[in-house]
């Protein structure tokens, strides 16, 4: 099962992750469904925007481990949904202004349920485990933001 991964400093096109799965199907026309998740940098952060207006986000990655951890996450997801042909992730690093895409995750499968569930699960898992960090920049400061509690 294909599990491509890429870190990039460049803008991420909507089909960036999906295009990495070209040829992942066991035979052409096997997969009737493709599911794509795109994460975008938001204008506000914190509960009800309590952190104030976000100018953009600086993403940092532990390059060597990001690919390895995606491999583990994708393997778990593929084991859970064996009809999925492949699942791909492209994550941006460096400065990402508001409104731009920070992450794309895509999966394909014969029918829609598995592709949609696989993408959802992969996003949940990578938000908890991928060694990538986000530093939000505000008008008057910055802060490391995590949805994860203590390690």
């Amino acid at each position, binding site marked *: 099962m294909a599990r491509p991964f890429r870190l990039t400093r460049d803008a991420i096109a909507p089909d960036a992750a999906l295009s990495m799965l070209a040829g992942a199907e066991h035979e052409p026309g096997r997969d009737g469904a493709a599911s794509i998740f795109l994460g975008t940098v938001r204008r506000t952060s914190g509960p009800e925007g309590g952190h104030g207006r976000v100018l953009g986000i600086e*993403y940092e990655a532990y390059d060597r*481990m990001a690919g390895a*951890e995606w491999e583990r996450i994708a393997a778990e997801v593929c084991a859970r949904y064996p009809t999925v042909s492949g699942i791909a992730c492209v994550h941006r690093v460096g400065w990402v202004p508001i409104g731009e895409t920070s992450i794309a995750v895509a999966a394909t499968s014969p029918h829609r349920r598995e592709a949609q569930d696989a993408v959802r699960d992969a996003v949940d898992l990578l*938000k908890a485990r991928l060694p990538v*960090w*986000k*530093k939000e920049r505000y008008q008057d400061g910055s802060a*490391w933001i995590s949805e994860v509690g203590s390690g």
Partner: protein
Amino acid sequence: MKVRVRLFAAAREAAGFDEVEVDLAAVRPTVAEVRRALAAGHPALGRVLATSRMAVDAAFAKDGDPVPQGAEVAVIPPVGGG
């Protein structure tokens, strides 16, 4: 045994370096011993360490796991990917 530890994000900012070295008395140290040595040698890291996971050779490690000679250890503060 000397252990090279990579620091990321808030850990790097707290220590002021992206990599530090700790010298451990044990021949076969555990991840927990590396944590303690980091906190002792770099007190500014204390708070971040308390909420960070550790990685050994690019995989999350538990405190009881061994640290092989030459392994790449890293402090992984709370992540924010996606």
